[in-house]
């Protein structure tokens, strides 16, 4: 249930205002646009990474704006892609001479609107490139990786792109590294309960008691398969069986790990689950690198979690370790 709101139609506008009021030390409002930009953006000679999507997924997307991470986030209404006009305005506000990289989850509404803005910016001489996050293995089979949607893997791709941009890499290089991070990132999730849009009295979908949905989407789309509820140990194996079967080629043995809460799953439960995930990773000969157990891409008040693995190499590890500051993630 979403309980705290005024007019549901004003939800996005009010959350942007409150977010900027709270985190003005890191971000400011993009004038006349639904978005926020880092206090230090744009920086001459440095690529601006622009992220975005519908609201309802905090910390995605505004929580990842700040020095060393995204230069700006374009914020749509709850679960709706931002319009091309808003993407364009935010891009104009943060475009530097080094160019702009769009980075967002692969959903048709986002693709349409970001693509339209990209064309308009290119017509005006701004060099804009795009890397779409496609980490959700449940959304399309192997061989059709580019059709997959983006979920919690957003975080690793944004972090790596933002760090490359902050280091002063060229647009070609920032694009290459973001693409590489995406190609080496996989996620899979389980849902135990639906989520409710602000102002709505009923959830978008329900999960029957004693059951869980496999392959949930962060927009509350029902999963691809329903299963009986299992103990944490079995859920850990189910998540890892799926991800390991989908490991990218030349994966290596070091993985960045994100166990992500979807909105109303307890942290303690996730630690119980992580104990079993960690055990299984070790048994598989994989070394978890600075694992994160946290809410990084949510879906309003949805119950459930997802596991993301990003197979690292030296250049990706260096970017993951680079300093950054944002409302949701700081690394110093």
């Amino acid at each position, binding site marked *: 249930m979403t309980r705290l709101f005024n007019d549901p139609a004003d939800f996005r506008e009010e959350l942007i205002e409150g977010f900027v009021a709270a985190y003005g030390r890191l971000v400011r409002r993009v004038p006349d646009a639904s978005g926020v930009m880092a206090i230090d953006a744009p920086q001459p000679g440095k690529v601006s990474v622009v992220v975005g999507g519908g609201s309802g997924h905090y910390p995605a997307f505004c929580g990842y704006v700040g020095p060393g991470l995204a230069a700006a986030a374009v914020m749509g209404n709850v679960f709706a892609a931002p319009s091309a006009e808003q993407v364009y305005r935010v891009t104009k506000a943060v475009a530097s001479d080094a160019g702009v990289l769009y980075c967002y989850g692969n959903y048709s509404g986002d693709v349409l609107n970001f693509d339209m803005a990209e064309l308009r910016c290119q017509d005006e001489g701004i060099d804009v490139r795009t890397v779409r996050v496609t980490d959700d293995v449940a959304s399309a089979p192997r061989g059709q990786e580019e059709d997959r949607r983006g979920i919690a893997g957003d975080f690793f791709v944004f972090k790596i792109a933002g760090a490359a941009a902050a280091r002063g890499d060229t647009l070609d290089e920032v694009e290459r590294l973001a693409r590489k991070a995406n190609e080496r990132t996989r996620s899979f999730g389980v849902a135990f309960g639906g989520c409710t849009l602000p102002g709505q009295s009923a959830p*978008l979908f329900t999960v029957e008691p004693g059951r869980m949905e496999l392959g949930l989407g962060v*927009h509350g789309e029902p999963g691809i398969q329903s299963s009986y509820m299992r103990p944490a140990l079995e859920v850990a194996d189910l998540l890892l069986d799926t991800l390991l079967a989908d490991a990218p080629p030349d994966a290596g043995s070091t993985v960045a790990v994100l166990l992500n809460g979807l909105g109303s799953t307890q942290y303690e439960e996730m630690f119980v689950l992580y104990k079993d995930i960690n055990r299984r990773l070790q048994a598989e000969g994989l070394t978890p690198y600075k694992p994160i157990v946290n809410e990084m891409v949510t879906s309003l008040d949805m119950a459930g979690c997802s596991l993301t693995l990003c197979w690292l190499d030296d250049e990706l590890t260096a970017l993951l370790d680079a300093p950054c500051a944002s409302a949701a993630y700081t690394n110093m």
Partner: protein
Amino acid sequence: MSSVEGADTVVRRWLALALESISAHEDELGRLDAAAGDGDHGATMVRGLRAANAALSTATGSAGDLLSAAGGAFADAAGGASGALVGALLTTTGRTLGNGPYDTASVVKALQAALTMVMRLGRAQPGDKTLIDALKPFVDALAAQPADAPLSVAWRAALPAAMAGAEATQSMIARRGRSAKLGERSLGHPDPGAVSLVLLLQAADTVFATS
């Protein structure tokens, strides 16, 4: 809609009635969308139409100009894929119609241009379970009417094709848009975008019949 003076009033009345009609069906459209998507289609359409009507309260110009302005406001306020696609549908229709004439042949030409634009932007084909499955049969049926038929008559004759098209989406499996990710779960429910398009076309029919 035979005189240039009357056409702009028709556009204003149509968008006002469209908002009324979509608002009355908002919950139903949301439920259809929730079957295989994120349940916000009704809310998105209402948001877009409110903005389109608000834009027209200050806009001036020909019927073509008004449709174009309404499309821009719709796309920006609605967001998402539906916002961009319905916005492009309105804007392209408006730009192609321009300052008229607004007879059946011109409207057919404008809607054909809009259909092409929506298919290109959404990368959707007939049978993909999208609004195209109502729009294309409608445009084809309208094009099949005698070119000298009054628009109100031709429009009404073409409407059943749109309704049948939307109905047929029930037995389709989504291949584009967010519901594509759910494949067969989309079976048995009509596409909400196709259903809302029919509501928009029906509102136009009501306005034509009384203008």
